């Protein structure tokens, strides 16, 4: 295609993007003169180029748009939703025409008379003109002549100035504010001069900005990255040789090569980094249009626009982000009426944050809408056969929320053409995982939803751990790596346990499922149960937040490797994320930890295993008669007990350490503030506040749930017994669960939950609270 036309297309697309942003901005701040001027200039340029290149229809549409904007610029019209809508529609039309030019060389012959008439009518809107003219105070009238001077500067034809002047002056004269008129005519000279200088200034500044950057073809940058990748591989090979040869001059040169390559790699990667603001810039319009069509009011806040990402990542997350935003607007945030009913502000807030942390890019999308109804989600999942009712009951809240990422899921009542077809969220998750990222969802019913996306900073060159298994070498991306374990040959049989036939290892108290790489990949020596004599090397990795152990033959070292994609013939193989060339020139495969986890059913298995363990624990209880109880007295003469399993710790605090917060007694405990509950207060049957011994320390039973703790102040901690419980009598209320006989004495079983709730109703929120610091 002609270079000139290519240039025109690139520039016009950029201009249209800016125009779109400006229009949305202008709607928010209708009197912002700079934005208005920018919009006018853009359309004017478009019209000029279109005319020059002979695109008649494009020129015609731009021309009518320009007329409308000219009125606005002259202060005769103020933007309103109709005008904004029409102008945005014009942007869409122009975009389509540009697309047609790109594909077929010329815009399709269409009838644009409707749009042209609309723009024309809006421009003339007689009521609009005089009314807004009155509203538009003197400053705007003075503005008119000022702009006349500024306009001709970028655009050569002085002819342009004349018709505009003719248009304005009659209106100015007709203005009800007649006093202003002479001011307007007198003003031009005085006011024009500083403005002319100002506009020159602006032009100089902008030309300085455009000089320091240069437009480069993306394919050229890709080629550059490839070459850098090759250089990294060659560098790796050279480094391998230096370890074998002891020539110091060679070693020094190799080291220099190493340093230069690392820096070159860093700089080359930077060339491909773009600020995330580039894709965010489209969102204000998306939110505006969507909230208008859904009848909602939504404010979009964006933080971290300058956060930089590799271009390929940006391409990959563009659509997922848009989908998430649309979901929030369509389903998340409620209509103003509903919001007010719930005591929220009528305007909903959608916040987007992006920042670098821990070698990854974090993107958060937070809305203060209605949150996700966990029960409905579970119901739908059961209905759609994604999970069974039992699984739903055993699921944690976090897992339940993540059900929406399952294929074929959608709780939308109505399927709009915006969202609700049940294909969105799982595609979002897949796309993000394809580039090595993770998605996490948190939500509170009635309060809002937060979606967190984490993506590794670079795809091409990554640090990896090299392992050997079954006679082959594999690379494991460091980002999936948690830790390395080595079991001595002698301990293997003891330390590897089997739960329902699947091997696990107890790592600091938690069960870690084990996957034998040789078995999974059907390599040599596969199927053979690890011999007793051999030590076992376990690479602890995590997939989708679930850790598991990968058993390999040997662990080699960590290296930076260049990720090369696998050919399409190997797309179906889930265990490998790519391949790389090692220092000795041979090809090694890069493991896809998530794919391995799915193939070996470790991910699904983890759920099952937990539920198995839970049910095993539950089935034990009825048969186990012996219970371990903590005995204490709450006041004079009362014997009470609570199951020891509910006790986190037993503590003693001097009475002097009690402080008051919000009228409640608290103590500082292990870096936290521990609220105190005087158990005796909540047991009506205990005698009136028994005079407490002022000097004695307080005996406190610390109880924890969901990460929050509370201290139950008791009279005296007596004993811990493990006994078979005989007679039981149930009693409800008064803070007592019932009475039992312990050590031949009647003892009351404390109802911890009701006492805590009586003291602080907000302690047990019921559902998992999203942790603030996550």
């Amino acid at each position, binding site marked *: 295609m002609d270079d000139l036309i290519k240039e025109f297309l690139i520039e016009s697309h950029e201009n249209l993007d800016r125009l779109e942003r400006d229009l949305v901005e202008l709607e928010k701040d209708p009197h912002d003169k700079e934005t208005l001027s920018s919009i006018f200039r853009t359309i004017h340029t478009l019209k000029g180029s279109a005319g020059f290149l002979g695109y008649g229809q494009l020129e015609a549409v731009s021309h009518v748009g320009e007329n409308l904007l000219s009125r606005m610029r002259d202060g005769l019209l103020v933007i309103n939703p109709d005008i904004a809508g029409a102008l945005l529609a014009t942007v869409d039309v122009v975009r389509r025409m540009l697309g047609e030019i790109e594909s077929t060389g010329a815009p399709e012959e269409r009838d644009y008379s409707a749009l042209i008439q609309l723009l024309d009518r809006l421009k003339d809107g007689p009521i609009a003109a005089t009314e807004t003219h009155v509203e538009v105070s003197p400053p705007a009238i003075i503005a008119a002549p000022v702009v006349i001077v500024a306009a001709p500067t970028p655009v050569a034809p002085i002819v342009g100035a004349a018709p505009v002047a003719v248009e304005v002056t009659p209106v100015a004269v007709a203005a009800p504010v007649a006093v202003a008129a002479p001011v307007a005519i007198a003003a031009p000279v005085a006011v024009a001069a500083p403005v002319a200088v100002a506009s020159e200034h602006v032009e100089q500044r902008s030309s300085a900005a455009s000089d320091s950057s240069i437009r480069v073809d993306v394919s050229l940058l890709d080629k550059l990255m490839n070459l850098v990748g090759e250089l990294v591989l060659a560098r790796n090979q050279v480094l391998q040789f230096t370890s074998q040869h002891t020539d110091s001059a060679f070693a020094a040169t190799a080291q220099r090569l190493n340093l230069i390559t690392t820096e070159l790699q860093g700089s080359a990667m930077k060339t491909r980094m773009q600020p995330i603001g580039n894709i965010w810039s489209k969102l204000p319009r998306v939110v505006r249009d969507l909230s208008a069509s859904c009848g909602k009011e939504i404010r979009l806040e964006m933080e971290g626009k300058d956060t930089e990402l590799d271009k390929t990542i940006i391409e990959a997350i563009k659509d997922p982000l848009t989908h998430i935003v649309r979901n929030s607007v369509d389903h998340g945030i409620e209509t103003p009426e509903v919001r007010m009913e719930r005591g929220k502000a009528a305007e909903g807030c959608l916040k987007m944050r992006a920042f670098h942390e821990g070698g990854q890019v974090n993107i958060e999308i937070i809305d203060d809408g209605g949150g996700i109804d966990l029960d409905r989600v579970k119901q739908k999942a059961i209905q759609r056969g994604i999970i069974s009712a039992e699984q739903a009951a055993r699921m944690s809240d976090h897992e339940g929320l993540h059900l929406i990422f399952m294929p074929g899921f959608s709780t939308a009542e109505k399927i709009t053409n915006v969202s609700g077809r049940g294909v969105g969220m799982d595609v979002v998750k897949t796309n993000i995982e394809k580039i090595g990222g993770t998605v996490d969802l948190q939500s509170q019913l009635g309060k809002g939803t937060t979606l967190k996306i984490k993506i590794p900073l670079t795809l091409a060159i990554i640090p990896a751990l090299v392992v050997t298994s079954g006679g082959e070498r594999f690379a494991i991306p460091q980002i999936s790596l948690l830790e390395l374990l080595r079991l001595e040959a002698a301990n293997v049989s003891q330390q590897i346990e089997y739960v329902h036939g699947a091997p696990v290892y107890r790592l600091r108290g938690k069960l870690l499922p084990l996957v034998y790489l040789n078995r999974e990949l*059907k390599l040599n020596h596969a199927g053979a149960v690890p011999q007793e004599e051999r030590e076992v090397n376990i690479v602890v990795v995590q997939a989708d937040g679930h850790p598991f152990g990968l058993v390999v033959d040997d662990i080699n070292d960590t290296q930076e490797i260049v990720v*090369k994609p696998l050919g399409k013939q190997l797309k179906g193989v*889930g265990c490998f994320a790519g391949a790389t060339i090692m220092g000795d020139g041979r090809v090694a495969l890069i493991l896809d930890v998530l794919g391995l986890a799915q193939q070996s059913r470790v991910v699904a298995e983890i759920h099952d295993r937990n539920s198995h363990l839970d049910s095993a624990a539950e089935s034990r209880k009825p048969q186990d008669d012996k219970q371990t109880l903590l005995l204490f007295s709450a006041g004079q003469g009362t014997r009470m007990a609570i199951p020891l399993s509910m006790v986190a710790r037993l503590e003693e605090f001097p009475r002097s350490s009690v402080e008051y917060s919000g009228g409640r007694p608290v103590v500082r405990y292990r870096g936290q503030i521990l609220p105190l509950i005087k158990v005796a207060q909540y047991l009506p049957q205990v005698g009136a506040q028994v005079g407490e011994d002022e000097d004695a320390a307080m005996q406190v039973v610390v109880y924890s749930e969901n990460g929050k703790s509370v201290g139950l102040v008791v009279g005296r901690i007596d004993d811990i017994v493990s006994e078979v419980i005989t007679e039981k009598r149930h009693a409800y209320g008064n803070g007592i669960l019932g009475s039992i006989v312990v050590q031949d004495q009647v003892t009351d079983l404390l109802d911890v939950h009701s006492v805590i709730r009586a003291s602080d109703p907000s302690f047990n929120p019921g559902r998992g609270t999203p942790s603030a610091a996550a």
Partner: protein
Amino acid sequence: MTPTKQFATFTLNSLFLGVDVLKVQEVIRYQTMTRVPTAPAMVEGLINLRGQIITAIDLRLRLDLPARPDDQLPMNVVVRTDDGALSLLVDEIGDVVEIADESFERIPETVTGVVRDLVTGVYKLDGRLLLILDTEKAANLPMASTLALVSAKN
């Protein structure tokens, strides 16, 4: 001057095949390959070609022919496809032949199976048939095997 085309030829089992010479990037002898565990059997492995990682496909298995005897090392015919370079493993390399277009014929009924799908036509040379391989189709591994792989994964 009658229009002609040039083909790079090679033998596979008892078949004599040819590929448009313009599609052939290079021909090299057997290279050590890295196996890809759990990949379809016809994917023999990956080779390092001057820094590029190329997938090597055993053309015998691709055409549903009996496997090569173990002691026979294949040759690599590296072809250019829409998705990048691909190596086809063949028995022996033949010459580059130049043939007149008019000798092109449709594939005879006697040829059946996968070979029929992947061959665009034949040329009659003295005494034998040259089957022209469609490299793009050969590069697309059959859906059945990938489907089986996907379902096994799930």
